[in-house]
């Protein structure tokens, strides 16, 4: 099949898949909706991180701060203002994006490992600040005054979020922007020499990723009905997202989905052995890095290409 034809069939199948997942929702049990929600949310987070780290080369360990800001912002908006939910979610994402904007000046002065460690320190600083600060509820956190939508409603919102994310990711990776991004990732200084503006590119990617992370956090906060700093700003979110993208395959479009399904299914299977589950995740992470640096999606791709070569 020609490349053009391949692309066209791709454009059709994606919206079809989303439509199918939405239409089937009344038939899904609560458990399926719960698992579905979790996977959808994690894929969104992973796509955002993939954009930042896989495509942009900015390995960030600060996911949790934007996630938490989104959650708290949503709770605050719904509790204190009359803003409807449909508006509050993107606004919460915007708050996270605002944080990204504020720290970008400082954080982008750092390169490579300094950037990574810097984002880790940032996440920890934000977490400590939220724990100490009484104006945001301190260690107790905040409670959502209204009842959140039912599980089916949350599932559909998550589906919509992922659809939006997919569109953004497609735009980012298939347009001219992707070339600029790759140039900045591979050699920032050289890119600057030929007229690319690295800071602006990095900023766009950072803001987009933080926005998506923030909306995901807002959705999680909505579902829980209660936000507090240890659960929302804790490192476990960063760990999960990192694991998903690495295991799934970074810098690949199918990576986040493959990784999220793998991690969630593993988690459900080992639900009764949590320490084993976590240790196993660490082991898998190491094995993947060592033997399959392109992750599960990369392995699948290589096999498909190998098969294609053999038949050619």
């Amino acid at each position, binding site marked *: 099949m020609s490349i053009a034809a391949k692309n066209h069939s791709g454009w059709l199948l994606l919206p079809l898949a989303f439509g199918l997942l939405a239409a089937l929702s009344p038939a899904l049990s609560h458990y399926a909706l719960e698992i579905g929600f979790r996977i959808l949310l994690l894929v969104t987070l992973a796509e955002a991180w993939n954009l930042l780290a896989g495509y942009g080369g900015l390995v960030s360990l600060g996911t949790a701060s934007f996630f938490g800001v989104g959650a708290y912002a949503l709770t605050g908006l719904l509790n204190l203002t009359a803003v409807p939910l449909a508006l509050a979610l993107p606004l919460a994402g915007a708050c996270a994006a605002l944080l990204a904007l504020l720290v970008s000046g400082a954080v982008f002065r750092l390169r490579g490992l300094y950037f990574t460690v810097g984002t880790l320190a940032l996440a920890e*600083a934000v977490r400590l600040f939220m724990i100490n600060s009484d104006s945001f509820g301190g260690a107790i956190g905040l409670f959502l005054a209204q009842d959140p939508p039912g599980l089916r409603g949350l599932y559909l919102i998550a589906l919509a979020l992922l659809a939006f994310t997919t569109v953004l990711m497609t735009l980012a990776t298939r347009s001219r922007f992707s070339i600029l991004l790759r140039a900045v990732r591979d050699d920032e200084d050289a890119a600057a020499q030929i007229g690319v503006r690295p800071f602006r590119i990095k900023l766009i990617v950072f803001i987009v990723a933080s926005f998506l992370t923030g909306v995901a956090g807002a959705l999680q906060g909505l579902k829980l009905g209660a936000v507090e700093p240890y659960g929302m700003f804790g490192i476990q979110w960063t760990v999960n997202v990192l694991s998903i993208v690495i295991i799934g395959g970074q810098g690949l479009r199918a990576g986040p989905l493959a990784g999220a399904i793998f991690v969630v299914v593993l988690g459900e299977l080992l639900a009764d052995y949590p320490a084993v589950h976590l240790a196993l995740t*660490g082991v898998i992470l190491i094995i993947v890095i060592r033997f399959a640096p392109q992750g599960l999606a990369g392995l699948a791709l290589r096999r498909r290409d190998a098969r294609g070569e053999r038949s050619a």
Partner: protein
Amino acid sequence: MPNLEVVANSLVSGVLLGGVFALTALGLSITLGVMRLVNLAHGELLVGGSYLGYFLLRHTGIDPIAGLALVGAAMALLALPLQWTLIAPLAAKGMEAPMITMFGVSVILQNLFLLAFSADTRAIDTPYAARAITLGPVTVAEIYLIGFAVSVVIVLLVHLLISRTPFGRELRASSSDAAAAAAMGVDVRRVHALTFALGAACAAMGGVLLGTAFSFTPSSGGTYLLISFAVVVLGGIGNIFGTLVAGIVLGLLQSLGAVIFGDGYRDLVGLVLFLLALALRPSGIVRRAGHS
């Protein structure tokens, strides 16, 4: 504003504790400088040292600080196969892969500790672990003073090791230009392995001191990871004396933050300082020629 005695006690305690921070950060500094390894499992190596010291005391009655060298050696021996199997094969693959590997190691170790030792909080219980000592107008914890003294001694020893011994020469050569060093006959792989072991040993010894002064659980490594990073960046990667000074300064400033804002803000103060240091030095602290 609290009274003078409180302030003086706090600041002196901060300086002394800073010495211990320097020791724990030392290992991170060396591995970062020589191997370009962002060791995200550093906190777990530290807590591992605490557990080693705890069980050494429990089963043999040997005081962990007297037996500090034992703990360090044990950790070094444990670290060598880790480096050989997990890190060495990734030597040519840039900075990200080893960093994520160590991240995986950190998760594994935390859960190994949990499975093996349960989640119970432990503390190394020696007679001087919770004793006060009065030096003139100030009263400080005796363990802080001991910890400071021990840390300074070890830092000096490591400095001597790096500046005076043949191994030290090879280490310095590998860190400034690994390719050139290899061309000169230095076995860079062996240097990396031993450097990692040395770093792990320093972390473990720091862990014994901290485990005696405070308490530890399987997941308490994370806090010390960030403090160590802050010290390393402030002091200059690979700069031994810089690390000592930075540790002391950080301890002092943390205590100052505690006096002004409260103990809860200690870590936050440390992190803000760290972020400032990172931000104000655009390309990191010590820029090595030929490396970014």
